[in-house]
């Protein structure tokens, strides 16, 4: 019983000790804006901006110094009256579209955005064509007389596993 309690206490201590330090490290209390509406916009924006140091984290998640600098800069610009689009433009002018976690649709990213759908269409087209061709071939086979069909089956019997049944 005491052992179970001890394990439980240990688990609680671990989750309690690890979780807050992990989640609370990126955004610091001193960065948060007083205006809740502005802060909400700032958080939304920073979740969509790439931390250029770690590359696969947003600046909202990242502990990197540069991410902190960019979070503060972004909030300063919002407080100064910039629109969301102006903040994004400010950052892409310096770091390029790479700073956006969701790549914009431009000719360069067409392959990325439309590639999967295009591959799906090509695949579906291939299957449709293949099925049509097979149907046409079957129809041709049906045009044979019974005599010809028996002859054909005899010829193909040992050569092609698809026609083993002589059909």
């Amino acid at each position: 019983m005491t052992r179970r309690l001890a394990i439980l206490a240990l688990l609680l201590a671990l989750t309690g000790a690890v979780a807050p330090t992990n989640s609370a490290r990126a955004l610091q209390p001193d960065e948060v804006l007083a205006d809740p509406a502005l802060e909400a916009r700032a958080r939304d924006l920073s979740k969509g901006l790439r931390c250029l140091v770690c590359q696969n984290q947003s600046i909202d998640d990242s502990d990197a110094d540069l991410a902190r600098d960019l979070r503060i800069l972004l909030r300063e610009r919002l407080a100064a009256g910039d629109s969301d689009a102006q903040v994004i433009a400010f950052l892409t002018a310096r770091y390029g579209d790479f700073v956006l976690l969701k790549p914009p649709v431009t000719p360069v990213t067409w392959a990325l955005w439309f590639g999967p759908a295009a591959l799906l269409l090509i695949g579906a087209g291939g299957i449709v064509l293949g099925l049509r061709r097979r149907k046409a071939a079957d129809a041709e086979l049906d045009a044979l007389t019974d005599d010809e069909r028996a002859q054909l089956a005899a010829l193909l019997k040992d050569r092609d596993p698809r026609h083993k049944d002589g059909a």
Partner: protein
Amino acid sequence: MRLRLRRYQIVFLIPVIAFALLAAAFGVGLYLRPDIIPSPLINQEAPSFALKPIPGRDDGGLSSGDLKGQGVTLVNVFASWCVPCRAEHPLLMQLAKQGVRIVGINYKDKPQDVVPWLAELGNPFSRIGRDDTGRTAIDWGVYGVPESFLVDNDGRIRHKHVGPLMDHDVKTTILPMIRTLEK
């Protein structure tokens, strides 16, 4: 043994070909450098900025005006706490000795650290500006130190190098570019 495929058996080659293509793509991917983010500032005018000198030194500070009409300039973003900066430093000294104009942006550094650092390793910079907030570096699209930029006589950024400059970079890119830009 002679391999003879029936027509329909060619279908079986599709996975093999697909694998070969995939392996080739991954092979190419091994040699890509995703850590080098292309800069939108190439061929743009350098951002306007004005940085004060490092206290305790007389490097004269650095501002956008110092990059115009001075020939080709190598702008180096550095810090005394940055280990790769120390690694590239001898190369900067050598370039300065060869007559390349180098100016420095000292990124988020303490004067009491960078003054002895430059005294120990030598000073390749004809001017140094102190960017203690890192804001000028953000305007230059810097995301790590060291980074180096080639700025032409008109104050336009023509090349960006991320990370420490190596012998190879200087020989194959930096010096040839300086030569073309000076024409």
